[in-house]
């Protein structure tokens, strides 16, 4: 049945004719504000798609909006799938696409944290479908470019969706690892004993066990009191001791953690559990890192995880505390606090302080090594069950399933004859419950998180040459003074970037006339300036602060018309002629 559902989604997606035959007439539809009313690419956002499903959405968007969406293959996954990236901008206006300030987005780095891909694809879809009718989006795609990798871990995504799993498995990517170091890989994973595509729990009747049924919901197992006899013992997730080493399910898919693989403060697996061989030894991450290294215009980044309702920023490791200085924290705080407002129930937190200290995380590399302002959102939390903070999420989840999902999330306990444990019962929540959104809440949260990334992207630097002043100095000499402004919150260089010269300075150049001298003006009124002695035509400005400006000046011989151009890796290009 599982397979059939997947196939029918797929055929709906690829077959436009079927779609139109069952679609409503456009005259029957009226726009709900903020959502595309009659999109060229129809996608329902209340379900999950496997990787091919997301590739199909991407390809259809590219076909429907060739001037907005380009799909590129940036590498191969460990199992040989194409790793795709959507580069979305208004290709017809603004400067050349890869010179526009970029916003990078990915999801699903952990195989079981799937909804990030739907959020990422929703963002791509929303941008393309809203462009024609929404001024804000039009402007955003004029100024910026979005690089969206719907799944940074396609092999793992498909394993989670297509193979029997629980909500926590697999976290790892799909390269086989010998977890128990016995020389064999993946030889003792889960076993889907009841063949329903979900790895649920095993329990056995046992008066010496310490569990019993919850009287308020007998599906739920709770601990007995200290002086009470038990009814059941729990035997863990569905499985068999396949390799007869006395342990059940100890060497399954993976295990490594693709989010411990990034080359900033990376540590090996005996220090940082989950690290693979060396930084970027995971091919999917390497492909992304290589792409980012070739795109210094990426100024902002977002990755989607689950769960907990968190908007996370670095540092990931306590050892990196000094990396983030006050100016950067101000920018992060302004963005993060806006995120809390846009996504109710989510909290803005710092990984190492508020979560756990971790080495080799993606957001740390983006910021530490590339100077890119980056967030990781932990999607979904128990707040969303009944739109309030929850003190007992475990029990609430049973109520939520009962009253809002009508028990669709739970596989009822059923007897099973286990080859090693004898008579047991198998049951529990499906893999798609607990960490991932139920269908009816998926689009809503995708939209809110997307809005946060739009705010983030909007505040990447926007440079303009505000004014050119020309003053005659006599003797055929002129003084040309230009004001370069940054109209957004982010500086062209994060403080980490400035500290290590990660990106080159912003270049402000003058054409028209012969440049005799050039300088950066610190105080225009008091006439204090610092001269750049070498190559004064192109003034190197280390940084243009957020909501700030710099003034540059040249002494020029001749010329009547002057063009001042600013070229910044993360701030884009702007020019003015006078």
């Amino acid at each position, binding site marked *: 049945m599982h397979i059939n559902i997947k196939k029918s989604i797929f055929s709906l997606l690829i077959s436009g004719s079927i779609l139109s035959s069952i679609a409503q007439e456009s005259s029957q539809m009226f726009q709900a504000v903020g959502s595309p009313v009659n999109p060229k690419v129809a996608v329902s956002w209340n379900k999950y798609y496997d990787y091919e499903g997301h590739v199909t959405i991407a390809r259809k968007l590219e076909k429907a909006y060739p001037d907005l969406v380009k799909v590129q293959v940036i590498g191969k996954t460990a199992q040989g799938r194409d790793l795709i990236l959507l580069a979305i901008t208004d290709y017809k206006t603004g400067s050349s696409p890869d010179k526009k300030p970029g916003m990078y987005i990915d999801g699903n780095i952990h195989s079981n944290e799937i909804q990030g891909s739907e959020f990422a694809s929703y963002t791509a879809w929303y941008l393309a479908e809203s462009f024609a009718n929404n001024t804000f989006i039009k402007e955003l795609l004029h100024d910026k470019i979005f690089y969206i990798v719907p799944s940074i871990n396609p092999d793992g995504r498909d394993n989670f969706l297509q193979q029997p799993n629980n909500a926590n498995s697999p976290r790892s990517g799909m390269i086989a690892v010998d977890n128990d*170091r016995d*020389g064999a890989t993946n030889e003792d994973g889960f076993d889907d004993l009841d063949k329903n595509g979900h790895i649920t729990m095993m329990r056995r009747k046992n008066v010496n066990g310490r569990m019993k049924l919850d009287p308020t919901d007998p599906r739920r197992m709770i601990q007995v009191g200290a002086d009470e006899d038990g009814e059941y013992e729990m035997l863990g997730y569905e499985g068999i001791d396949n390799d007869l*080493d006395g342990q059940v399910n100890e060497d399954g898919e993976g295990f490594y953690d693709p989010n411990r693989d990034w*080359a900033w403060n990376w540590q090996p*697996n*005996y220090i940082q559990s989950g690290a693979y061989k*060396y*930084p970027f030894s995971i091919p999917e991450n390497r492909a992304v890192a290589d792409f980012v290294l070739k795109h210094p215009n990426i100024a902002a980044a977002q990755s989607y995880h689950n769960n907990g309702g968190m908007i996370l920023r670095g540092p990931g490791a306590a050892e990196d505390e000094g990396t983030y200085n006050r100016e950067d924290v101000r920018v992060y705080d302004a963005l993060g606090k806006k995120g809390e407002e846009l996504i109710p129930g989510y909290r803005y937190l710092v990984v190492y302080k508020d979560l756990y200290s971790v080495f080799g995380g993606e957001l740390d590399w983006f910021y530490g090594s590339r100077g890119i302002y980056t967030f990781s959102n932990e999607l979904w939390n128990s707040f969303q069950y009944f739109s309030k903070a929850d003190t007992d999420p475990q029990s609430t989840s049973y109520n939520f399933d009962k009253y809002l999902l009508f028990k669709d999330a739970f596989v009822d306990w059923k007897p099973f004859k286990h080859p090693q444990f004898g008579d047991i019962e198998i049951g529990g929540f499906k893999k798609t419950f607990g960490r991932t959104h139920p269908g009816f809440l998926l689009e809503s949260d995708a939209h809110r998180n997307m809005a946060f990334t739009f705010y983030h992207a909007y505040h990447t630097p926007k440079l303009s040459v505000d004014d050119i002043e020309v003053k005659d100095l006599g003797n055929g000499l002129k003084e040309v003074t230009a004001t370069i402004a940054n109209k957004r919150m982010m500086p062209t260089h994060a403080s980490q970037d400035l500290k290590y010269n990660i990106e*080159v300075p912003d270049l402000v150049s003058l054409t028209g006339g012969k440049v005799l001298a050039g300088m950066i003006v610190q105080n225009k009124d008091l006439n204090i300036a610092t001269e750049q002695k*070498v190559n004064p035509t192109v003034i190197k400005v280390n940084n243009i602060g957020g909501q700030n400006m710099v003034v540059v000046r040249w002494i020029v011989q001749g010329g009547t018309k002057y063009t001042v151009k600013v070229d910044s890796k993360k701030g884009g290009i702007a020019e003015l002629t006078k």
Partner: protein
Amino acid sequence: MNKFYTLLFSCLIGSQFASAQDYSNYSTLTSRAQQLEKKYPSLVKVKSLTKTLGGKDIWMLSIGTGNLTEKPAVAVVGGVEGSHLLGVELAIGFAEKLLAQSATDSVKNLLNQQTYYVFPNLSPDATEQYFAKLKYARSGNAKSTDDDRDGVFNEDGFEDLNGDGKITMMRIEHPTGEWIASPDDERIMIKAELTKGQKGKYLLLSEGTDNDKDGVFNEDGEGGVAFNKNMSYNYPNFVAGSGEHMVSELENRALLDFLFEAYNVYAVLTFGPQNNLSNPVSFNKAGTSKRIISSWYEEDVKVNDLVSKTYNKIVKAKNAPVSKATEGNFADWAYFHYGRFSFSTPGWWLPETKPDTAKKQKAFAEKNDETAYLRWAEKENISGTFSTWAAVKHPDFPDAKVEVGGLDPFVLLNPPYKMVDNLVTEHTNFVMALSKMVPTVAPMNVKTEKLEGGLTRISLDVVNNGAFATQTKVGEKSNWVKNIHVKLETSGKVLSGRANQTIGAIAGYGKESLSWLISGSGKVTITIASPSNGQKTVSINL
């Protein structure tokens, strides 16, 4: 006779190695490796791990017999530092000398028991600079890098101002200079010290011009990322030559991709700048009690100590300089991140030379490698390695007196080639002595006790016959070091004990006791195996 004819000539007479006059360039190294494969086809396989950006193969020689991956292995690594040509020579030379003895019983036996993976040169793009038209010490590969991070690549390299084909130093008489001629040897420049009442007279810079006019000389020339600065342990971010991130380079990745899957490697021997063989590392408790460790564990320090004693017995040179801890180096990586016993030696260092009283030489007032070198060179009759300071015209200092001169590149790290053969012999003997300490597992004290009711209890000790522990303390915790796998197969039924189990580390000459209770009769086979500790089987008839 120039190099080309030397090579041609030696090829003609078919004994190219015996008559080699100089270190091997890339093509000579390649043919030396291929010759070995041709000469010992059953013992050597040569493979290219990858091609560098400079188009050079990273050669790997797998030496041994039978199934190499099932035998404990030593990885021998040379050329980790591009200006250290001796490292290349020691690695390939080891392979040659080992194989030359392959008909002897002891080496035949050794090659039946163990495997050697020899990587003669990890920096072929850099070492080639020694043989180039313009000779200078180079560590970086052929990647184009922006070493000074100014947005322009390779725009400020060296210039051979005096046209002698090599890059030395230049001194400029300058009021703000910090350097003076050494009172010990006026040819050598030292820093003036205020406390000694000295005032500087010269600026001292490498030979060249400030092409990009940024006030820094020769800071962004050809020569990209250094192999020995690009590893993940203690990696230096944003430093010239370290690359844009850890393990970014093809050479580093290819070697690591191989090594991580080579579970049989129990020790790594690096011929490079680090030295823990002349003097072993010392244990620092604070360094092992942090989350990110920075000291070897105490048990492993003992092993290092033992190996160092062995080294000093075989390798005659004494008074090695204290090893400098550099960031991102390979030898440290091999212990801290690869979890293997890691040994490293430069193979040669400047010997101490006593003052020659006949020549009225005095003891030096200050320790300085360059003055020491000149005294040693004189004693050894080595000439032509120092260029006398001679004036040149310099565009950046049109009004100052600029002189080019100083010690040749390479000479402080690499001895004259005629000394190499003996060093190779010593180090080959050392590797063979090291191999005797290999941790190997075997069953001992095998006991079968017949109990009532057709039950049998089998017990045995798994012993480690080597001086090394089966795993380093780091290895015990690493996913990339295998445990010892003990498997019991029987037609009977195992009532107690595990049919499949793993044992973690066993200390040098240590043991682990196991027992099983079995009902039924027939044959019982117990296999004890680990890729880095060998494989043994016990058969018992119940």
